[in-house]
Structure formats: C-alpha cells, structure tokens
C-alpha cells in the first residue's frame, strides 16, 4: 500500500516538475529580453543556467511517467490507455511514447536535452550569442509544454482506478517501434538548434561566416538521426505490417520525409557557404523551412488531421492550439528573416556554371522541388476537403510517378558533383574522368534491358545512373590513392587509410553517397522486380515464386506473453531453412495482427504473411520474393558510418592539406 501511495505521489511530483520546467523555460526565453530592456547584460546569463534546470525538471517529469508505466499505475489515464499488466517490461517503458500525450512529452524532453547540450557546448565557443540561442529554444519549449500540460496532459488521473489497462497498440509492440520515434524526434528536434542559431544571427546581426561552421555539425547530427529514424520506420513497417513493402507514401511517412529532403539540401548548401561564402540568405531560409517542416510533421501526425495509423487523437482544442503555434513560429521567424535577412554578409560571385557551387545550387533546386511536391501531395487533399468538401486521394502510385524522376536526377547530380572542382571545372579533364564511369553505367543499363526486357523503363535508367555514380566514387578514390602513393611511396593499405582520415569531411560525404547508391540499387531491385503469389495452402502443398520453392508444413498454436498466435511454418526447399509467419490475437485487442515470416539473404528476401484460415486446414498465404531488400538496410548502415567519419573531422580539410604540403618537401 505504501509503495502504491509513493507511486501515486510520484506522478503528482512529476506533473509539478513539468509545470515548473515550463515556467523556468519561460524565464529562459525572456532573460535576454530583460537583459536588453534593463541594460543588465548579466541577466542574460540566467537563460544559460536555466537550460540545465529545464532539462533536469523535464527529466524528473518523464521519469515519473516511466515509473508509472513500470509499476502499472492505472490511476494515470495515459498509462491505462497504453499499457496493461501483461505487457512485457521493455514495452512498458516504450509505451511512454506509444500515444499522443507521451510522444509530445518525449519531443519536449528531447528539445530540453538539446538545449542543455547547446548551453554547455557554447559557453566557451560563442558565449555572447548563447543566451539568445537558448532563449529561442526556451520559447519553443514553452510552446510545447503549453500544448502538453493544458491540452494533452499525460499526467491526468482517472478515478476510480481501473483494475487493468487497455493495451499498447500491438503494431507498436516491436523493437523497431521502440527506437523509431525517439530517433525521429532526435532528428526533428535537432533542427531546432540551427533554427535557434539562425534566429539569433538575424536578431543580433551575427555575421553568417561566424556561425555557419557551428551549425554544420548540428545539422549533420539532426540529419543523421532523422535518416536513422526514417530507415528504422521503413524496417519496422517491412517487418511488422505484413504487406511486403517498406514505404507506402503514407502522409505520416511524408511528414518525416519532407524535413529530411530539405535537411539534405541544407547540409549541402552549408558547405557552399562555408567554402565559397555564397547562399547566406538561402541557408537561413532553408534552416527556418526545415525546422518548420519538422514542426509541421509533428503536428500533422499529432493533431489527427491525417487519418492514418499514427494519428492517435482528434481534438479540436489541440488542433487550434497547434495551428496557432505553427502560425506564430512561421510568422515570427519568416518575419524576422524578411526584416533582417539583408544584413547578412555579401555574396561572392560564381565563376562558371560548371563548378561545384553551381551543382550544389542544382542539388538544392531538386531537393526543394522534391520537398514541395511531397508537401503539396500531402496537404492538397486536406485543403481541398476543407475548402470545397471534395475528396480526392493522393496515394502511393502518384508519388512513385512524380518522385522517381526527381530522385533519378538527384542521383545523377550526386554522381557528377564531387568530381567537379570549386570555382571552375576544366571541361576536358572532367570529360576524361567521366568517360569510363559513363561507359560502365550505360553497359549496366543495357545489361538490365537485355536480361530483363519486360521491366519498367526506370529499371535500366536507375540501375545505369546508380552504377555510374558507383564507378565515379571508385575511380575518384582510386585516383586520390594513386596520387598519394606516387608522392609519398606508401603501401596501399596505409595510403587508403591516410587518404580517408586526412580528409574526413570529404570522404565521410563520399561514404554517405556510397550508401545512397546501395539504397538506390535496393529500391530498384525490391520495387521493380518483386514477385508475389497469394495462394491457399494445406499442409504439404508447395508453391513456387521466382524460383523459390516453399512447402507449407501446417500451423501450430503458440502462446506469447500477452497474445495467442497461430504460427505457420513453411520450408524453403531450396535451402532447407524455414519461415514462420504468425497470426496473433492480442488479449485486449479485437482484430488479429499479422506477423510476417522472413528469410533474408543479401540478394533476396522471402517474405511470407499469413491471413485467415479458408476452411479446414487451408490457410491464405501471401508469398513475396523481394530482391535486394537487404541492400536498403545495409546502405542505411553505410550512411551512418560515413556520417560518423564526417563528424569526427576536427577542423576543416584545408588545414590537414596544408600540413601535408608542409611535410612533403622535407621528405
């Protein structure tokens, strides 16, 4: 009983901490304003210290909620709605972000974490701008806490206390789900840091060459988390939803994809500004837009305007608040941008259209068009419905038709861009460098046409472009190694390692590009060469799909911690391995869930999902053979590796180059 009482009071304490956090965040947001108004510069320091307090208080609130989940404290409404006593411990903790209220809490928790890290990081590096940066972050925290505490409070209690809770949405009871939302949020919220920097720069007229280098790393970190979150979401959808695919152009997926697209444009155009002092205003515009799309993404999902698996709540009060908050953030940030954007530094000129900076501009053009198209396809049906009552659907087939050509151009730019030098390219040298990769790419495209003549036009084109990009990456790296070995007479392995470590930013980026190529190949393979068969099978029946022979062995009942399942077993006669798809009935849910069975090798996945019995011992079985799916996950891993390499570079490459040059004459 005493333990129960403690648990009850802990939640109250948590709620108190959350309110306190909101107030402290408000102080954090207003301190620099006060400092300015009362001409007391030291007042601004409050916001730096407050950022620690806000994080500590938000954490206490969050931990008290987790405690409520772990101890199954059903006096908390949110716990009742998203957990029950049978739920495994792992998912009890993860249930914190399994619903609307808790996931918003996670958002603000992550935001306060970032704010504290910025506060800690900036004390030495940019102390005079730090209070304003933290104030911007603080006001965002206040905005989110307002929504959480007044309109969707996870600390709300319900009396009488129910004996047991409902359940965590069974779709979400998967390890992929546990990490997908936090990573996505780390990405979304990560873009708040560049946003705060940009706002600060506009307000305090901080010259952009002084801060753009500082946000590069933050933007890359946010981009990395967002990429991982999206990849994990795809992986989760693939394993959990049972339809053999990983990306459905669902509005919720689009909501996370839009900031990714603009974020990708941003990490590229930051480089242009850093190296060539161009695109200052454009970068600020991109920073603001990327963060706005992160907000939009969160709110589209959270407000329930999209009816989709992820939307948990529909509540007009919340919708109005969200709309108002978005409007304020957009108006204020773009308003300041309009007023002050001109005061950023003057642009340098470009020398030639065939220069890396020019190709970066084209990269930005394509990513912007991609993002705007997704935005339109996602919002237009909502707007049309709201304005005229007409209902249309903009679904996956549309996005595939529109986006694939855009992505092909992007990969083509990615193939050529890194070979083109800054300022001005020597066209003859460039042509010579591109010749062999181009021939290899065209050969790959012809090979696809020849071997698989019936395929869609994108198959040879995409393969050709991807292989072209791959050959460029390889030849470019080989050229750098050869040059280094000629100069320094190093053994091959040493030269490779030294080259990569000597210019981590560049080669980190190239490894990311390599990952993109691998993903592109995976998308081509699994998107265009999927084979499937939907059949009814009795034990002993065999089915052949794309050369894979499967024998249905029958179905056995199975008991999980909080579900009963019928587990089918199919033997893959080619390899002797088996796959075990399941039909799960979670105890507190009505509809049964499919759990797919997958046999995965590097070159293909055999993916089986089982629906209902169709009489007797016959079951409806859907067999997919998806080529190259694993390329997508492997490519994701490569991207992360490249990102880590790029982030590990301490200072910009020029210094190490200068160092190399200083060493060379001595040898």
């Amino acid at each position, binding site marked *: 009983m005493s333990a129960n009482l403690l648990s009850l009071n802990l939640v109250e304490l948590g709620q108190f901490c959350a309110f306190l956090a909101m107030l402290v965040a408000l102080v954090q947001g207003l301190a620099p304003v006060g400092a300015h108004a009362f001409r007391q510069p030291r007042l601004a320091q409050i916001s730096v210290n407050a950022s620690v307090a806000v994080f500590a208080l938000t954490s206490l609130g969050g931990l008290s909620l987790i405690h409520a989940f772990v101890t199954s404290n059903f006096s908390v409404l949110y716990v009742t709605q998203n957990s029950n006593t049978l739920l495994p411990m792992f998912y009890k903790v993860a249930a914190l972000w399994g619903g609307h209220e808790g996931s918003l809490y996670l958002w603000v928790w992550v935001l306060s974490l970032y704010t504290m890290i910025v506060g800690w990081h900036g004390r030495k590096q940019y102390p005079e701008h730090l209070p304003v940066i933290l104030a911007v972050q603080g006001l965002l925290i206040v905005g989110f806490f307002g929504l959480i505490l007044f309109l969707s409070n996870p600390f709300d209690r319900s009396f009488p206390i129910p004996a047991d809770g409902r359940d965590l949405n069974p779709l979400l009871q998967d390890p992929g789900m546990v990490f997908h939302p936090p990573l996505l949020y780390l990405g979304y919220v990560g873009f708040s840091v560049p946003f705060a920097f940009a706002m600060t720069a506009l307000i305090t007229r901080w010259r952009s060459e002084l801060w753009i280098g500082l946000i590069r790393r933050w933007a890359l970190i946010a981009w990395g988390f967002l990429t991982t979150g999206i990849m994990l979401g795809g992986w989760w959808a693939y394993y959990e939803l049972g339809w053999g695919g990983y990306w459905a152009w669902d509005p919720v997926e689009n909501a996370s994809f839009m900031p990714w697209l603009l974020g990708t444009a941003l990490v590229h155009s930051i480089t242009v500004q850093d190296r060539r002092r161009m695109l200052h205003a454009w970068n600020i515009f991109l920073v603001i837009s990327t963060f706005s799309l992160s907000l939009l993404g969160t709110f589209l999902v959270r407000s329930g305007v999209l009816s*989709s698996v992820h939307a948990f709540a529909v509540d007009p009060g919340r919708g109005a608040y969200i709309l108002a908050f978005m409007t304020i953030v957009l108006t204020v940030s773009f308003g300041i941008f309009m007023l002050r954007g001109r005061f950023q530094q003057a642009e340098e000129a470009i020398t030639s259209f065939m220069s890396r900076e020019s190709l970066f501009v084209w990269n930005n053009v394509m990513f912007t068009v991609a993002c705007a198209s997704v935005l339109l396809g996602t919002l237009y049906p909502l707007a049309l419905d709201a304005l005229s009552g007409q209902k249309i659907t*903009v679904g996956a087939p549309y996005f595939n038709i529109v986006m694939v050509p855009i992505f092909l151009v992007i990969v083509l730019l990615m193939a050529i861009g890194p070979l083109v030098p800054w300022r001005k390219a020597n066209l003859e040298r460039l042509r010579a460098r591109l010749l062999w990769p181009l021939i290899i790419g065209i050969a790959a495209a012809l090979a696809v046409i020849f071997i698989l003549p019936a395929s869609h036009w994108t198959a040879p084109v995409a393969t050709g472009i991807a292989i072209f990009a791959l050959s460029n990456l390889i030849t470019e790296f080989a050229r750098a190694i050869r040059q280094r070995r000629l100069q320094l007479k190093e053994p091959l392995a040493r030269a490779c390692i030294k080259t990569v470590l000597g210019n981590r930013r560049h080669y980190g980026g190239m490894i990311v590009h390599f990952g993109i190529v691998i993903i592109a190949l995976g998308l081509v393979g699994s998107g265009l060469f999927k084979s499937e068969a939907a059949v009814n099978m009795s034990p*002993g029946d065999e089915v052949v799909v794309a050369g894979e022979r499967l024998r249905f062995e029958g179905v056995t009942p199975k008991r999980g911690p909080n579900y009963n399942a019928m587990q089918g077993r199919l033997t893959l006669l080619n390899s002797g391995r088996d796959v075990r798809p399941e039909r799960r009935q979670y105890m507190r849910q009505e509809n049964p869930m499919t759990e797919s069975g997958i046999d995965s090798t590097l070159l293909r996945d055999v993916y089986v999902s089982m629906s209902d019995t169709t009489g007797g011992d016959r079951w409806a079985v859907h067999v997919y053979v998806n080529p190259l799916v694993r390329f997508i996950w492997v490519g994701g891993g490569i991207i992360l590796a490249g990102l880590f390499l790029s982030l590990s570079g301490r200072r910009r490459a020029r210094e190490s180059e200068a160092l190399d040059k200083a060493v060379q004459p001595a040898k």
Partner: protein
Amino acid sequence: MRHLILLALFIVVPVFAASVTEDPLERQMLDIAKDLRCAVCQNQPISESNADLARDMRQIVREQIKAGKSREEIMSYFVDRYGDYVLLNPPKSGPGTIVWLAPIVLLLVVGISGFVFLRNRLKPTLPSAPKLSKEDAALVRAARKQENT
C-alpha cells in the same frame, strides 16, 4: 490484360502435383485492387486491407473480372459509387489537375530561379593576358638585356 496473365503464369510455375498455383483471377484482381483505396481505412489500398469493406470490394472486383469487365470499367464502377476519393492516383482532370501539374510547374519555377540566381552572380574570371606582339616582345627582350648588363 493478356500479358498480365502470362506474367502471373511465368512467376508461379507449377513444378509437380502437390504444388498450388496462384489463381490468375486473383492476380488480376490484386492488380486492380492495388490502385483502389479502401474507403474506411487509413490510406490503404483494398489489396492490403483486412477491413470488411475492402473484402467486399475485392469480391466485387473479382465478379466484375469474371463478367468480362475491363480495368477502366471496374475503376469507373467504383468512382461512380465512392467518388474520386477511391482512386489512389488522383484524377487527371477536375480537382486533381493541380496535383499533376504542380511538380512540373515547381520544377520550372524553382529551376528558372536557380538559373537566374546563378547567372546574376556569374562573373567571368579575369581575361587571360593578351599575347605580346613581336615588336613588344623584342622591346621586352631588349629591356631585360639592358638590365642584366
């Protein structure tokens, strides 16, 4: 339509007696069902939904294929009953026009702005120094000689 059946046969080749093959009707049905939205579901085609409505709609597609209706006829059957909403690909006329035109317009607008941006900032590098004429070269040589002596 015939090549779809052939394709289905090609994918699912019966090997020996115990093997089951996919009903070609089922493949045709799924190919149509892929592009129809389940009206009560959350952004799912009826080919993937477990909802009762989706099941009924799949059954209707099956029956209409059996009755010899074409893909277009089946699509318009559903559009008549549920409106354009049921098409996962928005219609290319009426309210859907904007969605189809927008990417092209966006590409033009953003692309042209990108081009104009670059051209406005385009400054050629300094022209390379003109070659010395023979007389001038002779003058230079003479001047150098004088300097050396």
